[in-house]
């Protein structure tokens, strides 16, 4: 599974999944910490919808970590102050980079987690739609 999709699942879903996947790698391989979890900023670039141009809305606090497995460097980046998750994401990223056999087994777990996320998001949106206005024109 490619990085964009798996990071969506690992960050939006239950954080225990990232912990579990990272732990299975730590138990089997040597994971060298290149950069310990540290805080930094990401500048957010946006497109405005009036004239379709770009501008910077501001910065967001992130936690970043880097880990090396089998000469492959993995990076973990997450919004907020989340040291553990950043490190777990870096380990998982390195595992994919090193093409470790575990990553093939993870596929089904990640897809299952993705379905749960989508279901929860749809449920949350359906709940919000209870506040949808149903206009009726009144006779005067």
């Amino acid at each position, binding site marked *: 599974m490619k990085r964009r999709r798996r*990071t969506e699942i690992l960050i939006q879903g239950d954080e225990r999944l990232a912990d579990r996947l990272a732990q299975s790698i730590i138990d089997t391989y040597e994971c060298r910490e290149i950069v310990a979890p540290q805080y930094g900023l990401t500048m*957010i670039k946006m497109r405005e919808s009036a004239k379709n141009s770009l501008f910077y809305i501001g910065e967001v606090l992130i936690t970043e970590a880097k880990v090396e497995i089998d000469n492959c460097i993995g990076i973990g980046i997450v919004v907020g102050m989340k040291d553990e998750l950043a490190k777990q994401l870096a380990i998982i990223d390195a595992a994919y980079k090193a093409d470790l056999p575990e990553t093939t087994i993870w596929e089904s777990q990640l897809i299952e987690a993705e379905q749960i996320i989508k279901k929860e998001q749809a449920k949350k949106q359906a709940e919000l739609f209870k506040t949808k206005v149903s206009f009726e024109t009144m006779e005067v």
Partner: protein
Amino acid sequence: MGYVPVKGGTQAIEASIKRLKYERLKGQEIIEIKTIMSTMRGMIDQVMSESSLYSPYLAALSIKQAEGSMEEAVFLMRAHRSTLPRPYYSKTVEPETMLVERRVSASFKDIPGGQVLGATYDYTHRLLDLNLIEEKLEENQQWLQNYQEELRDIEDFEEVKYFPKVVDYLREEGLFEEYEVNNTPPIDITKQSLQFPTTRSERLQVLTRGQTGTVTSLGYASLRGYGQVHPTVGEVRVGTVPIYVEHPNKMEHSAEDEFYIGEIKVTEVESFVPINVKNENNEYELEFEIGYGICYGQNETKAIAMSILDQCLEHTDSDFPTHDEEFVLLHIDSVESTGFISHLKLPHYVTFQSKLDSIRQVKKGVQGNES
């Protein structure tokens, strides 16, 4: 004018800082960060927006440290931000990726997808709720449980819906001008000082991090005649947008190799502004332009006011203060304006003495032209 160093205040300053701590602690109550995060949503959003740093946790900490002073909290956040590295710039956040929590239009009753009120104070009675004085955790838990049960009967959507903008429908009808996608790299005002005339990207960045009260007041001033913009709100949206960053290694720059890093909540507004333009026959015709407003968190008044000022500054006119970009952009920042005003209370002994000396000399009649 020069500055003259003086000493003698060290002990007094130390005592003053101790006194400040005493003021925060003397009530012998501790407000937890998580309490601020759970209950002070509006303040957190305002601090994040004005400091231009999205971090609810740090915003809550700054509010705690500043004892609720907004200007102090924003100052603390800006100062903290300046200590952090900025290793990444995000990929462009496209507005249509917003997962909408609230969406209303003042221009159309029926908008495709419907008007969703979400959570809003708009329809509440502005009466103090005296029941909150004796609020009990158990009662709140019971309320939450009942609310969850109410929601249980709602039929789930099959999948999440993403809503096109109201303005997109009007553009399809040819009622609004279409603009080509413009990928000109924006200027970052935190890296490059403002030069006038400014670019659109600079204006939007200054406005979105402007002090809420100032943005609102100047937007209001435009409506009252100190500007020429009186819009109708086309759409107000509140929701979350996903943030992606590129891998630092250029070999991994495909969209699928990007990092998803999380989401931020924003309020976004498009205001429709009527303007008169001359057509081919040299006759005046009514057209609409769009004013754009956006800010971190849920702060609809600020975003609407920003959309007014955006439109004002697109049509500079020195006859109106809200159309004067130097006037608006140089006075709208919280840290700059509160910093400059509050520095006036710091010692100005020498400059003031010099002015006093001048007045004394005038009074004594020893001016050069008399001698």
